[in-house]
């Protein structure tokens, strides 16, 4: 009996310890995000000749370079899923639901989330490795010694760049997926004219969808930037720790994006 109590207490201790660690990590990340936001508000125009090109470089690296891959995913996603859905809905006589299904599935949910996960997998991980290496090589301390705030020089451009990149990539993804979906339906001889297809889509769209799409995708970019920069920079790193830290960042980034997505679900219900 005593043994059972001991083991259940140990189990409770373990769960409690884990919960406290998660709460502390969440607190630290929120603090990191708020510090970056503060730096963004106070120093956006400071040293713009140095920092603004870094923002564009980040958009190039995490946005433009991922565009071919997102277009490829958009085309395949459109052909495989949307095309089939459109064909199916038309055959069962539920063609009027096409717009609603497309807006819900593509624009609200899968488009932003899939884009965020692709950006996290590519740009987020490269951020952790890059910043972790800089930290391990003493480059971050060197920046501080030059009077250059690492949050201003390293984190702010990444946060802005990733927010813009996820927004743009998700937009392209949605557009390509919708177009290729129609192409697939057309190839399957579904009697759906382009005007009717896009008309139904337009009927189902509200301005709130655009606003929430923009907000959600940009916040996904912010989450990816916070998680990746936090893990790369927040504490002294040794080279051998970088791969483990990158794995953690990916897991936490995915969880962060999914939780944010769930929060937006509440928003969609009320708006």
């Amino acid at each position, binding site marked *: 009996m005593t043994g059972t109590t001991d083991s259940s207490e140990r189990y409770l201790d373990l769960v409690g310890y884990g919960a406290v660690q998660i709460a502390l990590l969440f607190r630290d990340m929120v603090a990191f995000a708020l510090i970056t936001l503060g730096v963004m508000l106070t120093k956006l125009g400071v*040293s713009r*000749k*140095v920092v603004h090109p870094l923002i564009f470089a980040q958009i190039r690296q995490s946005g433009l370079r991922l565009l071919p891959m997102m277009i490829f995913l958009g085309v395949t996603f459109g052909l495989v899923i949307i095309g089939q859905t459109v064909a199916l809905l038309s055959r069962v006589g539920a063609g009027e639901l096409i717009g609603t299904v497309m807006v819900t599935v593509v624009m609200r949910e899968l488009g932003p989330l899939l884009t965020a996960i692709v950006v996290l997998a590519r740009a987020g991980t490269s951020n952790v490795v890059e910043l972790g*290496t*800089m930290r391990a*090589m*003493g*480059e971050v*301390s*060197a*920046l*501080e*010694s*030059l*009077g*250059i*705030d690492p949050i201003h*020089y390293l984190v702010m451009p990444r946060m802005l760049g990733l927010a813009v990149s996820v927004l743009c990539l998700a937009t392209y993804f949605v557009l390509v997926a919708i177009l290729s979906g129609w192409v697939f339906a057309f190839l399957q001889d579904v009697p759906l004219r382009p005007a009717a297809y896009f008309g139904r889509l337009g009927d189902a769209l509200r301005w709130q969808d655009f606003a929430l799409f923009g907000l959600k995708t940009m916040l996904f970019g912010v989450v990816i930037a916070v998680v990746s920069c936090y893990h790369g920079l927040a504490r*002294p790193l040794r080279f051998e720790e970088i791969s483990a830290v990158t794995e953690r960042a990916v897991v936490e980034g995915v969880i962060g994006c999914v939780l944010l997505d769930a929060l937006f679900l509440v928003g969609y219900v009320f708006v």
Partner: protein
Amino acid sequence: MSEAAQVELVGVDVASEDDPDRLLVRDVTWSIDAGEWWAIGGGPASGKTALLSVAAGLNPPARGVVRLFGRDLAGASESEQTVGRREIGFVFENGGGLLGSLSVAENVALPLRYHSNLDPGDVRARVEALLRLAGLERLADLLPSRLTLALRQRVALLRSIAEPVRILFLDSPLRGLAPSDIRWWLGFLRELRARRAANGESLSLITSAYDFHAFRDDASRFAVLEKVRFRVLEEPDEVTGYREDASPPAGTADGL
């Protein structure tokens, strides 16, 4: 507190950056006056880098007060700290912490471009002049990874003096260098101080090393880190008689 003290540490404890619970140096009281050249001796892992980082205001002390140019760092605003840091140069060991993604010229230009509104042409001219000073103008477009450790350290030195600093911290600048490189460094530092003096300005140097051999003729003040203590050597005999192998690393049973 001395009138001219540029850096002052009072009752400072210095902890390891990796493990804040491990104290590397205890109860440091140290005053650096304008124009002094300090040589800090100490064995491996004796806390030289950590002490220099705290004295330069890069890391906070575990305990005690650090004043830079008379300002207590603990109470200074971020902008005051930034202004203070611009007057302090710091060259890290093992290649000086150059940014790997920027070329040699871009590294040297970084503090100028970040802190001033100089035209790109003026920045380029100043960077070229600095590189010429160290005979590195041919390497301007190379990435740091293409350079040897000794050359990277030279570039880091140029980057640290790109702005008109008043204090220069050099963390083990001569470690692992060939005799010719050591001669170059000592000559360059002497000339730098002489140029400043000719303009009526002072440049304080704080250099660390395993022993004082290289700095014996140039440094004006000497101190050692041994047994987790910071001790200023006042007598010339102590300086000539100091050997780093006499001091065990901080954190070992003997050291504590």
